[in-house]
């Protein structure tokens, strides 16, 4: 199963990278979204995937799925969600201020004088 999931992880990260390298601020948002998918899946792979009973003592029985990556991913998802919301607002402000979604317009003023 690892090979399949690793391939999936690779595809997710590839797509995310592709989006992040675009000029459009909207595509940047999609890139951020995809990035969190890839991350979640990759960490999830670090548990033992052959043991897949729900880690709930009353309902399931051993071998449980590894609960630690699950807890880590939960934390990461929520943090990522906060980031996404923030990025959304940032993108809106970007569009509001610069009236463009072209990220290439963000040139920094570093003139050499003289």
């Amino acid at each position, binding site marked *: *199963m690892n090979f*399949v999931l690793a391939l999936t992880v*690779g595809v997710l990260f590839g797509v995310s990278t592709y989006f992040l390298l675009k000029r459009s601020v909207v595509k940047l948002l999609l890139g951020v979204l*995809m990035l969190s998918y890839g991350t979640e899946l990759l960490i999830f792979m670090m548990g033992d995937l052959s043991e897949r009973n729900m880690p709930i*003592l009353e309902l399931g029985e051993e071998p449980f799925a590894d609960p630690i990556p699950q807890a880590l991913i939960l*934390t990461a998802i929520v943090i990522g969600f906060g980031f996404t919301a923030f990025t959304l*607002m940032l993108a809106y402000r970007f569009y509001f201020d610069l009236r463009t979604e072209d990220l290439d317009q*963000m040139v920094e003023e*570093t003139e050499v004088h*003289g």
Partner: protein
Amino acid sequence: MFNWLLIFGPMLTAGTLAFLPAHKRFLQLTTLIPLALFAGLLAHAGDIADGKTFRTTYQWVDALGLELSLVLDGLSFLFALIITGIGTLIVFYTNSYFQKDDETHRFLIYLFIFMSAMLGIVLSGNFLGMFIFWELTTISSYLLIGFKHDYSVARIGARQALIVTGGGGLALLGGIAMVGVMSGGVYDFAALDAMAGELADHALFEAALILIIIGAFTKSAQFPFHFWLPGAMEAPTPASSFLHSATMVKAGVYLLARLAHTFGGGDIWLYALGSIGLFTFVYGAFMALSAYDLKAILAHTTLSWLGVLIALIGINTKDSLKAAMVGILAHALYKGALFLVVGAIDYETGTRDIRKLGRLAGAMPVTAVASALVLLSMAGVPPMLGFVAKETLKVASLEHVPDAFAAVFPVAAVVGSALTVAAATMIGLEIFLRKPQHGEDLYAHEAPLPMWFGPLILGGLSLILALFLHQFLDPIINPALSAVYSDPAEVELYLLPALDDLAFQLSLLSIAIGVVIGVTNRPLRDSLQNKSLLDPTHVYNKIFGIGDDKVDVRSLLGQGYRFVNRRLQDGILRHYLNYVFFTFVLIMIAVIIQVWGKLKLPSFELDEITLLETFIAVIIMISAVATTFARRRLGAVVWAGAAGVNIALLFALFGAPDLAFTQLLIEVLTLIFLMLAFRLLPRFMQDTSRFTTFRTMRDGVIAVMVGLVFGLLALLASSNREAPPIRYWFEENAYELGQGHNIVNVILVDFRGLDTLGETTVLVIAALGVLALISPMPLLDMLDKHFKERVRQQLEAEAALEKDSSIISHIYENINRVLLAGDDFRGDDNA
């Protein structure tokens, strides 16, 4: 104790002055400080002459081998005498040089800091400790050169001096660090001298030596680092006199003299010091004849004489070192005085242009007498101290000179001396005797007492010391020589040699040539026209490219700056991300290749693959890839959502119900947020530039590489499990200790509660950040009207392009219209 006083006396004076008002009374009193130190030194003269040394030590940083050890031996004594003695006259002089009290005040603060730093250099018995004072002289001289910082010339001069001497200081620091590596962290001069043999065998020896020599050369203005010294002539005259003739520029000479016994054995020492020194000797003296500015003339003669001192130390024989010691003293006396004279003339006439000055002997008789004395000394005419110096120089150039310099040295000595004589003749003639070359005679009268007092004293000393050689000079020179030569060295100085002595004949020859050149200086100078030959300033500009306000972007550093700021930091996010991703991929691939042999490689087993999960994974992949092909935002979001939902499904299948729930809910909320945001955002941008295909290809390649690397990492990590996970403890104890059946939840709220605390905080901060982002919307009025009009037209054109009849497009249009209309609903929560 007295050692400490020498260093901290001036320092404390500076500190106290800084908190005192700029009142003449305090300022004039400060003359007593260096005078007292000078007297104190003289009180030690007897002991020093007997070969005693005084040593005090304070451990500063043990781990770095840095101690503040102050050693007063013959060499230090000679220099300390010069510093405090001339320092006294300079401070006295300064009090009438500036028009305003607060200028004097500020100047004296800098000057005392400098004086204490300079005393620190010559007293330090620890190489590293010496460097600290070395850098302090750089900084304080920077402040002094840039004293009149309202003028851009002063700032440029200060910056040049800072860069050259500061750069040299860093080279010296590198050398010191290497010495530390060679000696095992020992920096004490005496200890280093004791292990001179071991040091010379070390592989780093030559590198260290070269770095130290560079440091000394920059400070002592040797070719090709000399150009900062003429540039530093924007400093107030007392500073020029003190720093640029008597003390700071001699720091390099001092350092080399101090190290002569330890490092002076090899070829590098001989050739570097000998050739550069001699070249600078001739070059400087020659350039002095081309300058218009009196101070520039003096600066060039100074670096010339420094050159010969360096060369003498490079030759490193007893005779040459003796000549160096006498030369240091003689030069300090006459050159310090000359600068002061120039200051007085400038003060009285308002110009330093040698072509405008003339016939001042009548107007300024005392100054003229003082000048005559020191000029005679400079020219090396008996019975002045300068003659003794020149004579010992000639002797040194003839005897025991290594073969390589046997022919060159005497010739250079004669030529250089002749040119020096020419310069002295020229100064005397042009200022005091002849008519001005341009314009009429200037109106002037005698300078105030503090301004002629110094030169007169120094001129008198030049005469008296020479006349009473054995009484005054020997007790100073001999201990110094012993300290340098590291043998009790008794040498005989003499004033008038026999006529058939070759050295004496050479001296006479050079005086004769010099006088001839000096008298005919005007045509020579007119033909040279103030131009600098072999001037490295343009190389400096090519490298650093900074005038004061303007930056030459074609210079080396300017190009580097442009490269970093235009090419790397170009403001375009995707370029940045390109670098980040690309480097990351490169690093990971390199590391994976590096350790490939040590890895357990994953094994592919077909029966592990389960159908349902694989199917879902394939859907995820298809959705993800489809996202990139979506032409509309909504399509892309739907595909992304599909991927997210399927990931949640995958979590559920692998026994992670909490995760699946959360992922699903977050997915929904994210989609809602995206929809809400899309209402506010433009449609996908059409990238119409010419490089689109290339860019897509490049992005694609990087994306594929990133994907491959992460996929590979996932595989490698899951096939290289090195230790059992700690999970079982949680399973055992979730109910017993955590009082809950849901292990994941117990981990979240209890076992790893701190993580949850952190992530909750992240959410709160994110909310605050979002609020902060919309808070003070800039006023719309501030936007330029035309700009807004143009943007709107562009948006309309884009909107027209977007219309098409696909179903997704309709949904999108609907939702978008709905959302666009929406606003907060009333009456529920906005209390």
